[in-house]
């Protein structure tokens, strides 16, 4: 069907799969417009990486991603697709910290852009149970990508990113391994079960673990990082 052929031809040209025909102004305009959309979106989503990446290499990666295919009908989710694409590709393999850096930058976009809800605030109590809120994300990083100028520094870093409902910003905090395990379990199950798990892993009594985390969990509740489970 010639109509489909026409559309395929144009898309192949704008994605860089086919050569731009010499002197064709229309194709040139569309190629520039589509590239501009992707380039602007992705360079804005990953400003730390964009600051240091070779711009030609970045542009090539954008074209490869366009060929691979962006699926989301809402543009703000596209940087996450790009992040996964880079991770699964052979691109930038010499930048060992890139996966961590792209997660670090993407999570800020995600926590700001997704619909968030502030939760009912009641004083923290172990009589209630809690889960990790969707306004928070945790990650074990291999590189210190949260410290500018030190991205290549390797180790084990446990990071919590959360949306602050009072000033509408995303904040990052380096947390202990124990807190990381607790929150990771709380994300999968509930805080009560998470405390049992941490007690088991650390060889401590559950009561001691509860006491140890009590003040921290109070603060996390105040920040909406954990939310009380409402039983119907």
């Amino acid at each position, binding site marked *: 069907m010639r109509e489909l052929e026409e559309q395929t031809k144009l898309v192949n040209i704008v994605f860089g799969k086919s050569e731009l025909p010499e002197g064709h*102004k229309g194709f040139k305009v569309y190629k520039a417009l589509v590239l501009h959309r992707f380039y602007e979106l992705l360079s804005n989503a990953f400003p730390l990486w964009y600051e240091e990446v070779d711009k030609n290499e970045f542009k090539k990666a954008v074209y490869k991603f366009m060929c691979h295919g962006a*699926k989301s009908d809402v543009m703000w989710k596209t940087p996450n697709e790009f992040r996964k694409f880079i991770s699964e590709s052979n691109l930038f393999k010499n930048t060992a910290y890139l996966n961590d850096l792209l997660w670090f930058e993407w999570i800020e976009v995600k926590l700001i852009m997704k619909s968030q809800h502030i939760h009912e605030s009641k004083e923290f109590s172990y009589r209630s149970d809690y889960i990790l809120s969707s306004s928070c994300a945790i990650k074990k990083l291999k590189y210190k990508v949260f410290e500018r100028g030190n991205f290549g520094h390797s180790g084990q870093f446990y990071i919590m990113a959360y949306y602050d409902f009072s000033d509408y910003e995303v904040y990052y905090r380096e947390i202990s391994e124990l807190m990381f395990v607790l929150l990771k379990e709380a994300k999968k199950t509930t805080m009560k079960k998470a405390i049992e798990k941490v007690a088991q892993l650390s060889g401590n009594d559950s009561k001691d673990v509860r006491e140890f985390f009590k003040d921290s969990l109070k603060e996390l509740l105040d920040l909406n990082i954990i939310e009380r489970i409402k039983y119907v």
Partner: protein
Amino acid sequence: MNNIKGLGLGLRRDFLQEIDADGFLPDWWEIAPENWFDIPYHHREKFEEIISLRPIVAHGLSLSIGSMEPVDMKFLKKMKNFLDRYDIDHYSDHISFTSLMGSQTYDLLPLAMTKKVIERISQKAKIVEDILQRPLILENATYYYVPDSDMREVDFINELMASSGIGLLLDVNNIYVNGQNHGFDPYKFLDELELEHAVYIHVAGYYKDKELGMLIDSHGMPVKKEVWRFLEETLRRVQIPVMIERDNNIPKYKVMQREYRTLEKVVDDARA
């Protein structure tokens, strides 16, 4: 179109927080629904306050009605949920395609102007209307080259509207830009366009790409004098709502307010 009257403005996140509910408000708002499927916490309260004060129309970007592929049902269901949630009666998109084989381009790409494309859009429009339970409106788009076509644009639009029953979102800037880029007279185009299908009007800005020698429909500039003049002529022929569309390089709300005042004057002059 029965719930909007007068003049509208595109509601953009960039100036949302500058809007005073007790201050200047247009007669109605147009929103790009895909940009509000997810509403950042920071904007939700304000958005819901502002849209509760005036009628709303939704002008989408991702329907890709002209692609030679099936309608994306998942997308349509998301759209319906959004339109229902905010009680929006009127939904439009563009006579173009934006995705192919599941890959998004995030831009409006041109269609071959053929009977086959008319047939395809008409079939897809029925599905869209069935799912959304609303009439579909489509905007005449800009194109920077003419894909392998059998028809002139004006004939293509007239036949599409007549055969599908779709409403036309008449973008006067796009007619002007296409006229300049493809060497036709926009006023003659208007003479031939069957305006009874037009539901409401868009007016927007363009810029000239000196290297290519083409006008680019950027939606990122103030409306040009020649487009105001063309709008005035259009408004002498058709009495429908009209709005300013600005999607890029978005200025302060007070700047949009000034442009809205210019629009008021143009409309008053045309309808005097």
